[in-house]
């Protein structure tokens, strides 16, 4: 006993020193990043950030959809010498935009939903194979694991860019991109749910002489199903957020509208789009949290 006390004290001291060294190392990394950017002159604020900010925020604060009710019904575009170039009905134009926005939102939801489901199905065998306590053959576990690692490492957008080249523009590319990236997330979550199982309970069922599939469906499945559902809702929710930007690369959905609005500096339209995104994500978040709580 007496010999243990000083050793553990020394260990605690070493731990604290080690932590201080880590903090110092982190500080060095941050300083190096900052200093090298400064030295290259890449940390600039642009030409007139303040004016740009004020202008953008001003437009941003008035989302475009209010024009449906308050916009000018006859907006005239004239050249500098006064010739009438074009007349448009703002209200009608905005109503059309809102309709397009609604359709894009639906597409985004479709992409996220089908992509998540596909990912969940693809990841199920991989997750089961890579869960350490289910003792799959080593080569199988290892290859399942590396498939999952690769799929997690590559961003949805990168998958999307490649897939747009393969299956063409549109939601199909988005669905596949979501599926391929989320597969990695699902697989890892599945494996972790299974690894936290009470193996004693599984062994107890195995001890009754039940076959492998009986053990799986009677002892493993009921314990992990609620966690699987909870994981599914979580990733689905995450993918709704993720799929809003997939349109940026032509994979369908809201992203296309976002990229249009940003390229044309239509901040008020961007505001409309973001409001819809926020509403969608918040709504889904609330619903999925409710369901997950009920499952616990």
């Amino acid at each position, binding site marked *: 006993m007496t010999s243990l006390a000083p050793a553990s004290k020394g260990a605690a001291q070493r731990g604290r020193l080690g932590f201080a060294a880590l903090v110092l190392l982190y500080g060095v990394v941050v300083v190096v990043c900052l200093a090298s950017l400064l030295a290259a002159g890449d940390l600039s604020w642009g030409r007139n950030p303040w004016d740009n900010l004020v202008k953008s925020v001003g437009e941003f604060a008035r989302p475009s959809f209010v024009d449906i009710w308050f916009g000018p019904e006859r907006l005239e575009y004239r050249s500098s010498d006064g010739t009438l170039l074009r007349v448009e009905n703002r209200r009608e134009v905005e109503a059309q935009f809102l309709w397009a926005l609604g359709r894009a939102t639906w597409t985004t939801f479709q992409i996220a939903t089908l992509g998540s489901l596909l990912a969940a199905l693809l990841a199920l065998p991989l997750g089961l194979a890579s869960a350490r306590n289910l003792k799959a053959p080593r080569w199988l576990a290892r290859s399942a694991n590396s498939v999952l690692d690769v799929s997690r490492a590559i961003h949805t957008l990168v998958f999307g860019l490649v897939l747009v080249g393969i299956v063409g523009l549109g939601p199909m590319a988005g669905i596949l991109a979501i599926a391929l990236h989320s597969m990695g997330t699902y697989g890892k979550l599945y494996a972790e749910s299974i690894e936290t199982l009470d193996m004693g309970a599984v*062994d*107890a069922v195995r*001890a*009754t*002489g*039940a076959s492998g599939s009986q053990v799986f*469906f*009677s002892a493993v499945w009921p314990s992990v199903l609620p966690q699987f559902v909870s994981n599914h809702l979580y990733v689905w929710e995450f993918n709704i957020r993720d799929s809003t930007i997939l349109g940026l690369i032509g994979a369908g959905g809201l992203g296309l509208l976002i990229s249009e609005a940003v390229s044309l500096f239509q901040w008020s339209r961007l505001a409309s789009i973001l409001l819809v995104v926020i509403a969608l994500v918040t709504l889904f978040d609330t619903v999925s949290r409710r369901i997950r709580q009920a499952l616990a």
Partner: protein
Amino acid sequence: MNQSRNPAAVELNHVEVVAGGRRLLRIAQLRIEPGERVALVGPNGAGKSSLLRVLGGFLAPAQGRVTVLGRSWGTQENASLSGGALRNLRAEVGQVMQGLHLVPRLTARENVILGALARADAMPLWRSWSRLYPAHLRNEADQALAELGMAERADMRADRLSGGERQKVGLARLKLQRPRLVLADEPTSALDPNATLDACRSLCATAQGATLLSVVHNTDLLAPLADRVIGLANGEIVFDVPVHGITPQRLQALYTDTPPYAYLRAPTP
């Protein structure tokens, strides 16, 4: 392999079990006849649970031959049983393990029904997946629970049960398995004195006509649970006597004369 040549319920020949560089068991000869009721006693780490795990096919012997209910394995023949033979063996060997392991999200009744999975009249896979169990198994499970005073807990989820209640569910599950050999590792460790007697009664009823091998710490339970008592220390059999041959002195010696625990008796410096 054939039962006529080897009618013993359990037979061990020169069995040694090693795990992690530590010798858990060394038993030269042990034979338990069908229908015998045997209690294992001994201090912690004596190898009682290891012995049960060997007999249940969860722990392979490093040397020697193990025969349980007419099936042999060990170094001299096939090192361990094939998957199918092991399953058949386990179907006939009922186990009550330490640690009160139930499937947490299933109800008490459903956990009890799991005992019947390997029985001949077992249900198809979709029934255990959908948790729509056949009526005769539900009735049987309810009856087994009622015998242990657990009738009103049948629909409660296993992770909401107390330790003692879980142990009772484990005993009811054992009953539905209809085993020919029962291996019970401290089957009443979490029970109050009243429930302990119920549990012993249930265990003996389950083991009616079968062989019962239980690990017991409470010496009051030796008589109701056993005809024969085997004392283990440091993985070896110290004594093997009929239950009436057990004296308090003998047990006292077994529990205290074991080197790892000898310091407990040493005078404090």
